[in-house]
């Protein structure tokens, strides 16, 4: 994976779409791995009999897992030290076997003194076309 350094000449423009990235297919093991990493052991996300007894077709992903994937996509853009805000809204569930395509579009660019502030709109879309997560991020980039 090529990790971009903060070489931003030229600075992205409002309306510009960043390179999307597709993750997955996401597996039950991926969900379990995220559960362990984050400390969320709600059985609805990994215990099949529990999930089906609760009326679901199968286990579904922890929302913060797809939020975490989207956050990783955000970090890929300009590095972790540039992130100032990250917001996600959960739209529809993600199930094992799903792929998640993350996309970002620049909405505003503001430059002052020795820094640039970029705002982006984010989407995480399932292979079905459905939106799993939407969100925004704000970056502060050095000159």
């Amino acid at each position: 994976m090529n990790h971009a350094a903060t070489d931003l000449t030229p600075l992205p423009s409002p309306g510009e779409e960043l390179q999307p990235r597709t993750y997955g297919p996401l597996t039950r093991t991926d969900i379990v791995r995220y559960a362990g990493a984050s400390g969320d052991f709600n059985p609805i996300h990994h215990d099949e009999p529990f999930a089906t007894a609760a009326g679901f077709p199968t286990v579904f992903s922890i929302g913060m897992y797809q939020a975490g994937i989207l956050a990783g996509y955000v970090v890929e853009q300009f590095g972790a030290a540039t992130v100032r805000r990250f917001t996600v809204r959960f739209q529809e569930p993600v199930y094992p076997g799903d792929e998640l395509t993350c996309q970002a579009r620049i909405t505003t660019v503001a430059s002052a003194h020795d820094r640039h502030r970029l705002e982006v709109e984010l989407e995480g879309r399932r292979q079905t076309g459905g939106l799993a997560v939407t969100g925004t991020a704000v970056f502060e980039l050095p000159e």
Partner: protein
Amino acid sequence: MYTMPIERGKIREFALATHNDHPDHQGEDAVAPPTFLTIAGLAWEPADESPLAELGFDLERVLHGEEEYVIHGHLPRAGTVVTVEARVAERFEKDGRRGGRLRFAVIVREFRDDAGDLIAEQRTTVVETAHAPEKT
């Protein structure tokens, strides 16, 4: 109020679990990924400080609506110990589309460094649905 150490190994585990192989999350001075602080409420928060418990929502009908992280300065690095204060910041209700009332709550966690400076805030919006979640 409670503390959470920002640990290199945990940063590495969390980054890999979220398919994030950026080098900023590797090494001794690894930077925490943007949603890393979700771990505080899940793994470090004492039961008697839990805002979700305080709300008295029926956990079988609670959905996660939104999540926001505001970073002051930059994301914390491995080796930092953050102090966390959690509270219910807002409560409101709306009518559900399928009848009944939806009860919303916004939980805010503030993270401070060892100098007492605010370094990050987490806003978690949860919804208690009127009925059991729709099965799809």
